[in-house]
């Protein structure tokens, strides 16, 4: 197994590297809540320190202290070894500390130049000196090796580029310490690469970086030090060389307060909620689905936990089922009744309720009392004819307060006087007061202390015993393994895995996509180029996106001008790549077909890849004008000896890059459908163990070449000439999963461009016993 791609093992031992900013015994309390307890944190000059921790662990609070938003309750900050007080963000900036938040703070309606100099405009004799600002902007962009025109409106930039603008802004105020909060959450893989390159450059310039991320594997590739926070306490600190994924998870999640276990001793009832093929469109009409054809069944008395990262679609799923968001496909049935077209009020009436994620924004009416909040969803229950009954309402309120154990100064207390945990209980109590049969809870334990969490889970557990069907979502792994009978992991709108209560935390986190697909494939198969293309939810063959990705890869290779000869295979996928190639002029390029390509089928022209590529680039084309398979081994040798074939073979031997497709060994394989090989012959190869094909060579599932009488007759580059060459395959699609894996196992591939769906299937194939939904 080769080393991972971004290998940045520090060359100096961390202890010797200077500490530029340190937090010493920092404590931060907000009233009765202790967000940070005696934390020690070092930022080393010119290095990346990553801060790991679950939600609520205190990461943001610590960052806010470092960047001047808060002041520590006790403890001190040391800058360059001397104690310092940072009383505001302005002071922090002046000291050289900048923070780039997860939600970027750029003004979208203004251009890049104005954003970078926002608040610090360079004044000239006649007002703002735009020319000077522009000049400085260009210098910054050059330093960051980014090609962004200062006059571009920020809203026209991709998210990754916007982030670069924020970094440029931080640099323009001479920041020495850059804090980046979840910078990669919303970036594409390519943008992440750019960001990491920029971080690398920043380090070289002596900028120190504090990095916060939930994407553990990704963070591991960039970090020099790791610090783990849990419940406001620093549980571990170590340099990169001493840590791995398991270390991080162990320290993040640790031994926990017992949040209970799945309630037992009763049978589940009938199916309460049935979701089939539900899709929810993303806001803004981008056409993309934030919940993608998801199906789920829930029975009375059952507790299901949904785990997933931000953007996985958990909240949208719940809000759609509750009636807040419209669906673009699929059905939701409550006790067999289709909920389509029902308003939120009607669904509550029917017994389906939702407690939202953000209790301040969506859960509580701050102007009303505790009692009024509790009774808000049950108004019908205490209204007789036209008038409400105070007595009835009071009964409902008191019962709620008792059952949900809310600590309050009576029902008449202002809602703001309650602690976070009790406020959450009010939101839950409000919904439970409607006597529902299905309860959806979006992150019910968010922002509440451990004691209140345990009480909430106890409440849900008791409810389930009484027949309540419960679905709760969480972004903390330990909460999955408490009262849930079933754990569902969502990733990009789909269910990526289902587990029982005996799952491990690593399994759950892996299924959520916290593990990078590209990373996994690269590491597992020793690739030096891997690109996983979002398949845009096309299930059989993501031809469009694959073709686009392949085309741009080819284009970038050709543009660099370092290749003289490119060898190509054939097939639909490669043809699509070439069709997607933006027109380029490369007259010195030579392209050659790597295998015999004469065929009986007149309509499909396997030469097409070579000739199209030559047309588009003005390159010189050479094909191998011999059949794919000969009648006998002797015939093969003769045919390969022909001048034209020899020339092609010699040219292929000089190829700097070979770009190929991967085929299956079934009757639907392109080789068969285009008439290059007969079905019977293909069947023979399959019988001999052949699972995947590349450039006319067949491999079994363990990656070993399959040799048979049939394969000996194939006219193509010999295997020994392929070893050690730069071969990049473009392939995807559900039917090719095994074929691609087989070729990957052979070790011949240096690069792979594949679609997400197939990539995931291949990665999952290696995992032991993952119950697929």
């Amino acid at each position, binding site marked *: 197994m080769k080393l991972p791609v971004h290998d940045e093992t520090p060359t100096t031992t961390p202890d010797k590297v200077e500490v530029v900013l340190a937090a010493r015994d920092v404590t931060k309390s907000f009233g009765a809540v202790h967000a940070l307890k005696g934390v020690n944190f070092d930022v080393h000059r010119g290095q990346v320190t990553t801060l790991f921790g679950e939600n609520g662990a205190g990461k943001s609070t610590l960052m806010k202290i470092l960047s001047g938003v808060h002041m520590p309750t006790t403890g001190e900050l040391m800058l360059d070894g001397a104690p310092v007080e940072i009383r505001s963000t302005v002071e922090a900036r002046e000291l050289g500390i900048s923070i780039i938040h997860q939600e970027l703070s750029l003004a979208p309606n203004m251009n890049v130049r104005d954003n970078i100099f926002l608040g610090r405009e360079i004044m000239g004799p006649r007002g703002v000196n735009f020319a000077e600002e522009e000049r400085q902007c260009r210098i910054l962009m050059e330093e960051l090796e980014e090609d962004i025109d200062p006059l571009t409106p920020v809203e026209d930039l991709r998210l990754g580029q916007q982030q670069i603008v924020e970094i440029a802004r931080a640099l323009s105020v001479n920041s020495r310490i850059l804090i980046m909060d979840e910078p990669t959450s919303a970036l594409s893989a390519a943008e992440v690469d750019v960001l990491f390159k920029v971080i690398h450059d920043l380090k070289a310039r002596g900028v120190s970086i504090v990095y916060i991320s939930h994407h553990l594997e990704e963070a591991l590739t960039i970090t020099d030090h790791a610090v783990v926070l849990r419940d406001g306490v620093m549980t571990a600190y170590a340099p990169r060389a001493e840590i791995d994924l398991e270390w991080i998870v162990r320290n993040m999640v640790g031994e926990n307060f017992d949040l209970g276990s799945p309630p037992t001793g009763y049978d589940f009832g009938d199916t309460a909620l049935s979701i089939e093929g539900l899709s929810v469109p993303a806001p803004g009409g981008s056409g993309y689905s934030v919940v993608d054809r998801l199906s789920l069944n829930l029975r009375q008395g059952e507790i299901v936990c949904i785990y997933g990262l931000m953007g996985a679609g958990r909240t949208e799923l719940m809000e759609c089922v509750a009636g807040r968001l419209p669906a673009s496909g699929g059905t939701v049935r409550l006790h067999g009744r289709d909920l389509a077209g029902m308003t939120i009020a009607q669904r509550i009436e029917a017994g389906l309720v939702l407690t939202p994620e953000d209790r301040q924004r969506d*859960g509580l009416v701050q102007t009303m009392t505790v009692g009024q909040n509790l009774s808000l969803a049950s108004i019908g229950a205490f209204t007789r004819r036209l008038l409400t009954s105070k007595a009835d309402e009071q009964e409902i309120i008191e019962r709620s307060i008792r059952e949900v154990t809310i600590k309050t100064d009576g029902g008449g207390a202002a809602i703001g006087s309650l602690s976070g945990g009790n*406020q959450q209980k009010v939101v839950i109590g409000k919904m439970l007061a409607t006597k529902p049969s299905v309860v959806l809870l979006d992150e019910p334990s968010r922002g509440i202390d451990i004691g209140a969490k345990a009480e909430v889970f106890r409440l849900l557990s008791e409810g389930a015993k009484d027949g309540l069907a419960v679905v709760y979502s969480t972004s903390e792994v330990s909460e999955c393994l408490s009262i849930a009978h079933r754990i569902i992991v969502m990733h990009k709108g789909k269910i990526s895995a289902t587990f029982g209560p005996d799952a491990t935390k690593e399994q759950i986190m892996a299924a959520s996509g916290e593990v990078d697909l590209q990373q996994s494939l690269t590491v597992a198969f020793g690739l030096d180029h891997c690109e996983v293309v979002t398949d845009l939810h096309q299930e059989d063959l993501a031809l469009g996106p694959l073709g686009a990705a392949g085309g741009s890869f080819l284009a970038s290779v050709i543009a660099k001008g370092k290749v003289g000869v490119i060898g190509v295979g054939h097939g639909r996928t490669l043809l699509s790549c070439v069709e997607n190639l933006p027109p380029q002029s490369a007259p010195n390029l030579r392209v050659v077909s790597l295998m015999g390509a004469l065929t009986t089928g007149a309509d499909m022209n396997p030469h097409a890849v070579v000739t199209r590529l030559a047309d588009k680039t003005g390159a010189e084309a050479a094909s191998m004008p011999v059949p794919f398979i000969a009648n006998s081994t002797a015939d093969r040798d003769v045919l390969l000896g022909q001048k034209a074939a020899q020339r092609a073979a010699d040219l292929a031997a000089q190829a700097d890059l070979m770009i190929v497709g991967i085929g299956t060994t079934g009757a639907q394989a392109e080789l068969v459908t285009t008439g290059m090989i007969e079905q019977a012959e293909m069947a023979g190869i399959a019988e001999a163990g052949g699972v995947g094909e590349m450039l006319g060579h067949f491999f079994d599932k363990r990656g070993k070449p399959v040799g048979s009488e049939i394969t000996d007759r194939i006219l193509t580059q010999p295997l020994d000439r392929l070893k050690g060459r730069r071969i990049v395959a473009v392939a995807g699609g559900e039917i090719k999963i095994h074929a691609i894996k087989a070729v990957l196992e052979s070790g011949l591939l240096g690069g792979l461009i594949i679609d997400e769906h197939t990539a995931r299937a291949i990665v999952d194939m290696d995992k032991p016993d993952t119950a697929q939904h």
Partner: protein
Amino acid sequence: MTDVTTNKKQGSGGLIASIFGENANLVQILLEGRAFFALIAIIIIFSILSPNYATVSNFLIMANHVAIFGLLSVGMMLVILNGGIDLSVGSVLGLTGVFAGFLMQGVELEAAGVILYPPVWAVVVLTLGLGAFVGAVNGVLVAYFRVPAFVATLGSLYVARGVALLMTNGLTFNNLSGNESLGNTGFDWLGFNRIGGVPIGVIILAVVAIAAGLLLSRTAFGRWLYSSGGNERAAELSGVPVKKVQITVYVLSGMCAAIAGLVLSSQLTSAGPTAGTTYELTAIAAVVVGGASLMGGRGTVRGTLLGAFVIGFLSDGLVIIGVSSYWQTVFTGAVIVLAVMLNSIQYGGKAKKG
């Protein structure tokens, strides 16, 4: 992570504590009952400055003036509770008055060659309907087309005023007393009569205020209104039909403006198209002085009425002691600013919690 504080201060002890509760203190009491205390202060001050002020007949006359603004304010309060605003009520008052006048003059149907003289009860019903209609248009614009309330009702303000001017050609309908033979007398009953010495207008205000109070405190709708004004998203997720509530409050505001239009034009027995110009601002002032929050979710009928009386008694008081009407405008403005500042002190502290 909220600061768990409660507004517990040491009670001033004794009498105040026993009336206002254990933890009251003077500042708190003054703040919460400020409209009431302001009214008392105004009455006392003007009674001292003019012997004519503190007489029953004067109070009733002043109350009659207040009735118009009070009616507008009650409707405005409902809209403000929802977090919106209705700038069109002054124009609707004028429009509905003109419409009533138009009906009373006799509707000429050329095609059939007759002139319809609807009886007074029909005029009232139709006029209320017009007020409701304008309110409905406002409501739909705000609720479904997401037009900001300020803009939607500003538009209605102009349109309604324009229609009123078109209907009268800028003139005034004068003949509103009706004719025995036509069966449409009684219009002036609203304006001139008294029951038990109390002007009808004041009684109507009382009835509308009591109805509104009941609506807010004892019906589901009232709960819906307070919750959607306090936090629309939370209310919606709790099953409150927020859009219906939004449209309804504008309809009710329009109807209150129509009632006010009827009362005013019957008081004057004439309906002019410019009636009610700038009245909406006074209505908003009354609501604000009464302690409602412009963000929505907070306010009571009692407070709004007190606010209307404060402004009305203040203005009339200034007239009685002979202060120029220009000073009235300054005073009214100062009172409003003071009221809003006090509102933000009262609610600003609470808003930071939670």
